[in-house]
């Protein structure tokens, strides 16, 4: 098979082509980027067929996203592609920050053992998509249609009519549900006349992805004001296949065509890494970024996800990673609504929860951007003050902001959250709304056990399960929306969930976020929390 970045997907004329009327499909996904692929895989894991439309004939143009966060890896693991990503990706956890020529700060992203997935891996976006496509083909439920472009959209009473342009002429699809994962320049957004509100930044950054054998530690290096890029910033990070990401801030006025000329880009590369290095270019790209989002992610039967719904600056690796979480959040809700097991209103919580997450990501990336590229003399003064103090004063290190790296959003205000039976601040990392924390079990991992449906976990150091808990769990497993019954007694898991002493019962949603929790077990309370988590009450 061709290398992931060179794969070409031919157009295949589908049976829907040339029919007198539009072909009906329950779910159409527009966009086979990371987000569309994850949505399709997750829907397939719940038994749904999908049609996925993408106008391109290839995977991601250029490496683009390279940092994949723990939560994305956990989601991909649930969908069967986690190990492939882990094997191909570069695992890293150390970052170093330099100011001028001095190292001022070093961080370790995952100081704690006992998680299946690392804090981050680095892997070119086309590989992420490649493994996604491989996994999609395994399911037999995902109809991937390359070189087909959505060019028109009409809302009908109970569906969405899509015009599809293809190399062999147009056809039409009638979908009950459409997931718009068609990226930052979303066609669907435009066709529906939706505004994309926010800020466009003037700062320009030059990406040089180069291939080079280099004996360097696998660490993220970030420079503020280095001699080779005075007054600006730079980043160096390793990807798979001996490819390195170099990112230079080049200023607002830099000339686009000049900057991306290989001889000019090569000068920058050599200024960072030395005159005598031997390398080839993989990708040169100049970008400006934006911080914008749709006001609402749900428009009836059209659900926006990923860059189509929100765009953030790359500092913090929050674009792709948050899009993957969008899909993870959306799919179980769509599944229950389609099966008639939850009211349509459950899908409104997709908007509530993921718009909240988008705001969190926008806030973090905007703050990082202001630190990396200060917008005023005063802002630069404080920035440089922080960097200078960070060399000697521990407190200032926490203020250094070269990107706050993506972690799963906790849906603190979510209407789906049920009871928190814990004392304030007790095991706060796994409060209702938060994503589950992994922990080792005998021969496996907690997240793998929780799986992709509702799960109820009795955490107790006592191996003996009280009779009423066992009976209650058996009852919950028989409901229309079943709750998988689990008992966990391992020390690390119990400690992480605040059950080192008194036992605890946690109700997890299908996206592995905590719905509710208690010390002790009360079946009626769990049923009430379950109804709430599917918007039934």
């Amino acid at each position, binding site marked *: 098979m061709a290398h992931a970045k060179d794969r070409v997907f031919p157009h295949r004329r589908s049976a829907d082509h040339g029919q007198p009327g539009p072909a009906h499909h329950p779910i159409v996904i527009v966009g086979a980027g990371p987000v569309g692929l994850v949505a399709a895989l997750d829907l397939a894991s719940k038994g749904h067929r999908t049609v996925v439309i993408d106008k391109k004939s290839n995977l991601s143009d250029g490496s683009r996203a390279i940092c994949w966060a723990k939560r994305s890896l956990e989601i991909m693991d649930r969908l069967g592609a986690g190990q492939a990503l882990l094997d191909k990706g570069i695992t890293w956890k150390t970052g170093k920050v330099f100011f001028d020529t001095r190292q001022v700060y070093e961080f370790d992203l995952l100081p704690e053992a006992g998680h299946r997935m690392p804090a981050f891996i680095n892997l070119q976006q086309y590989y992420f998509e490649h493994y996604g496509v491989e996994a999609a083909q395994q399911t037999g439920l995902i109809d991937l249609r390359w070189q087909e472009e959505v060019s028109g959209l009409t809302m009908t009473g109970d569906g969405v009519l899509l015009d599809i342009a293809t190399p062999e002429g147009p056809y039409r699809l009638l979908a009950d549900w459409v997931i718009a994962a068609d990226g930052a320049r979303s066609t669907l957004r435009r066709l529906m006349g939706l505004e994309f509100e926010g800020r466009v930044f003037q700062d320009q950054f030059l990406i040089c992805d180069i291939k080079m054998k280099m004996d360097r530690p696998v660490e993220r290096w970030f420079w503020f004001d280095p001699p080779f890029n005075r007054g600006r910033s730079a980043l160096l990070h390793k990807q798979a296949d001996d490819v390195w990401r170099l990112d230079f801030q080049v200023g607002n006025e830099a000339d686009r065509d000049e900057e991306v000329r290989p001889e000019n880009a090569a000068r920058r590369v050599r200024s960072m890494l030395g005159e005598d290095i031997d390398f080839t270019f993989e990708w040169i790209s100049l970008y400006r970024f934006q911080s914008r989002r749709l006001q609402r992610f749900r428009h009836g039967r059209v659900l926006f996800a990923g860059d189509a719904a929100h765009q953030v600056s790359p500092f913090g690796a929050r674009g792709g990673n948050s899009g993957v979480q969008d899909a993870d959040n959306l799919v179980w809700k769509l599944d229950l609504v389609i099966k008639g097991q939850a009211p349509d209103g459950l899908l409104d919580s997709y908007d509530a929860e993921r718009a909240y997450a988008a705001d969190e990501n926008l806030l973090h990336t905007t703050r990082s951007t202001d630190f990396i590229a200060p917008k005023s003399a*005063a802002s630069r*003064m*404080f920035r*440089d*003050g*922080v960097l*200078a*103090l960070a060399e000697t*004063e521990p*407190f*200032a290190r926490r*203020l250094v902001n070269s990107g706050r790296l993506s972690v799963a959003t906790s849906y603190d205000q979510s209407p789906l959250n049920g009871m928190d039976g814990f004392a304030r601040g007790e095991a706060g990392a796994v409060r209702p709304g938060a994503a589950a924390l992994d922990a080792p079990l005998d021969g496996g991992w907690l997240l793998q056990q929780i799986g992709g449906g509702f799960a109820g976990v009795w955490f107790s150091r006592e191996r003996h399960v009280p009779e009423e808990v066992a009976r209650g769990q058996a009852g919950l497993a028989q409901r229309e929306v079943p709750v998988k019954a689990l008992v966990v007694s391992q020390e690390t898991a119990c400690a992480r969930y605040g059950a080192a002493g008194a036992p605890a019962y946690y109700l997890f949603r299908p996206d592995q976020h905590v719905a509710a929790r208690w010390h002790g077990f009360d079946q009626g309370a769990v049923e009430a929390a379950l109804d709430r988590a599917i918007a039934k009450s």
Partner: protein
Amino acid sequence: MPLQYDLNLKDPDGTYAAIIDAHGDLTDAESAALNARLVLLLANHIGDAEVLRKAIEVARTSLGKAR
């Protein structure tokens, strides 16, 4: 503890002089840089976000830039 409006310094004149002295041999740009570092150090020492918010508000108001 709320922001202190009443005098909280044991040696007011000495403290004031110490701040001015720190700027004695500095250019305007260096003075601004010193002030930024002092604000950061003191903000961390105070720690209380509410006190800082109030201090920022009072300082801006005295500049005629209330928000």
